[in-house]
């Protein structure tokens, strides 16, 4: 999903970050807020992420893959199943980037994949590039 006009401004970006690890949530949130000045909504589980996606309608979702109960794949399926969340672009952030069945996720419409550990100073740029956002 390419965002073209109103949401092009960096300050207006609203990102939902779903990760079960508190440390990672905090670091990513800090990175994107302090360096990219985006608004970051966090969710610590798949259920919470799905709910917040529906209620908060973020510009994009950055999703961890390895999570208990609802993993990345199930999250995507559920997201696609909700009409109100179906069009929200998703970028994966995973420590298993190299062993993941990327094809499966690509078929589910993900926009990009960023491996852990990532460079916190350029993370926002990688996300923007994946989403075709102008940084």
């Amino acid at each position, binding site marked *: 999903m390419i965002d073209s006009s109103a949401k092009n401004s960096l300050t207006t970006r609203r990102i939902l970050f779903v990760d079960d690890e508190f440390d990672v949530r905090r*670091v990513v949130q800090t990175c994107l807020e302090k360096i990219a000045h985006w608004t970051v909504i966090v969710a610590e589980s798949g259920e919470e992420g799905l709910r917040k996606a529906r209620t908060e309608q973020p510009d994009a979702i950055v999703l961890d893959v390895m999570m208990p109960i609802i993993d990345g794949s199930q999250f995507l399926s559920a997201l696609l199943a909700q009409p109100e969340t179906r069009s929200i672009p998703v970028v994966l952030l995973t420590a298993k980037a190299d062993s993941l069945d990327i094809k499966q996720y690509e078929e589910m419409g993900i926009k990009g994949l960023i491996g852990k550990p990532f460079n916190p100073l350029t993370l926002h740029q990688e996300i923007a590039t994946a989403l075709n956002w102008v940084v």
Partner: protein
Amino acid sequence: MAPRSSHQPASTQKGKNKIRSASTRRSRKRLLQPLLEYAQDAIALVDDAGCFLDANLAACQLFGLSRQALLGRPLLDFIDAGGGHEGLNLQTSQRQIGELRLVNSRHVFSEVEYSLTPAVLPHGHLLVLRDISRRKAAIEDELQRQRQRVELFSEVTLKIRQSLQLKEILHTTVTEVQRILRADRVLIYQVLPNGTGKTISEAVLPNYPTILDMEFPEEVFPEEYHQLYAQGRVRAITDVHNPAAGLSECLVDFVDQFDIKAKLIVPIVQNLNHNGSTSPNQLWGLLIAHQCRNPRHWVDFELELMQQLADQISIALAQAQLLERLEEIVEVRTAELQDVNRSLKQEINDREHAEAALRQSEEQLRLITNALPVLIAYVDNQQQYRFNNNAYFDWLGKSPGEIYGAHLQHVWGAACYQRMRFYVDSALSGHTVTYENEITLANGNQRSVDVTYVPHLDDQNTVKGFFALTSDISDRKAIERMKDEFISVVSHELRTPLTSLHSALKILATGRLGSLSTDGQQMLGIADESTERLVRLVNNVLDLQRIESGKVIMDRQAHNAADFMVQAAEAMQAMAQQHEVTLIAQPQDLMIWADADYILQALTNLLSNAIKFSTPGDTVWLTAEAGQDEAIFRVRDEGQGIPADHLERIFERFQQVDSSDSRKKGGTGLGLTICRKIIEQHGGRIWAESTLGHGSTFSFTLPTLKE
């Protein structure tokens, strides 16, 4: 024929003439009459019926009748029924001659020669008969004698010929001659090549001395005698003391010693030489008969017998000689055959040994191969099994008999054979190949196997087949999988806290969360740098594990080497500048077959190393050149160099030349190992060359695209 007297009357002239001629005839008749009457031959006149009309005295005697009794009797009465008178024909005008057997009135038989002249008078035929009984008897006697001699001679010859042994032949000869001739002594004297000789065989009556083995003095048997005898002289001496015999005095003295009165000597002549061809007569010896009691006149038959037996001895000698030669030949041939036989036996022996050794070796081979828990086989170039060990039975449930001669596809099934085929073809092209495969055992279990095919080449380098070794690596594979999983899990588990740590430090370092004291910033810097290294290490470990586990499939495509070189140089330019190192890339247009990402990773890794280990002001070169079917890339630096004993080791994990130095440079100890894996996955080679103090060159090859 009775004399008739008659008176002759005178008449006319003509009549006178007639009277004269009649008178002449009468006077002639008178003259002939006694001649006929007393002729030796029987003369008779017979009439047309064959009855006697007249007969002379000899005829009367022949038929044993007086003339009166004879006249009127038919001739037929006197012809022996078995005598064959059919030839006598009174009806013909031809003169007939022939023989008849007559039987006279006293039943005395006589053989006669007859001549019948028909019609000497009207109805009177002249029959002349001559008694030939005695002559015929004499001839028959002679024939009989001759037959006896022939029989005798045959008998002796037969006896002689019954043996092939010369000694026995000679003994038989003297014994037989002595018996037949009733001589007192018969001997054979052999003339030796040096002119001397001795008695070699003798038959002598008991009351006379033996002269066996005796050598005759030379004066008794001088050289000139040799010549004469060689020419066939035969001497028959009736009385040795008779001067007419012409014996020398010394010879007479010599024979007197043995009381010899008469002697008969015939030569034994030989005309065969050693190579079997004929040669002039040579005197071999003498056959001698002695009469000791009294002088003896030797008759022709005795002479003849002796001569013939001497000839027989000659033949026997020739035969003996031939036999001897034959025996020699046989001996030589036998020796040759024995040699051949010996060598044949040796050969057979050798072969048996070789076969036994082969059998033993085969048994040992079988013993060894059967004891090993791996599949061992030999497959011919028709892809048929020619040898397999017992493990085939244990694994596949197929007996050696089922497998021997069977095709690979038959043994392994179509699907498995499809996976094997490429490697089988390679092996049959003469290449040693090793690969991994998945097989299903007889019990249904799946096993991972490591398979090696080693081609079998003959002297002409023709592939006759290949040796196949298949080992079960399922356990190893399971361990590898566990290791891979472990590394994977550990690495991922490390990544999560690292991500937080790394990110937190980075954000702190930006100062956006507040400023730190100088010491604080320094500590933060150390933490950041160490975290960076830890991140690289985890990334490298994962890279290496992925490549080694075979999870990475190189996406090889056609690329220009120049593009890689430019990209890699660009990527490393910033680092070079940071290290104040000049990076020079000399791009070369070479089409290579490679996975772009991985080759770039390898190139940047090598360049990164070169820059890291250079001192400011140095230059790092990236060059490429075309080799045979390959492109050779080189990264050269002017650093401190690598000791020769480290040139190979540095490609192994965590084998830096100086690990503390490497750590200072931020190395993980896995970069070169990853490079080597990447290059090897591409079918290339990587190596290092270095001169201490003058820098190092890292080179690798990649296959170039064939036209």
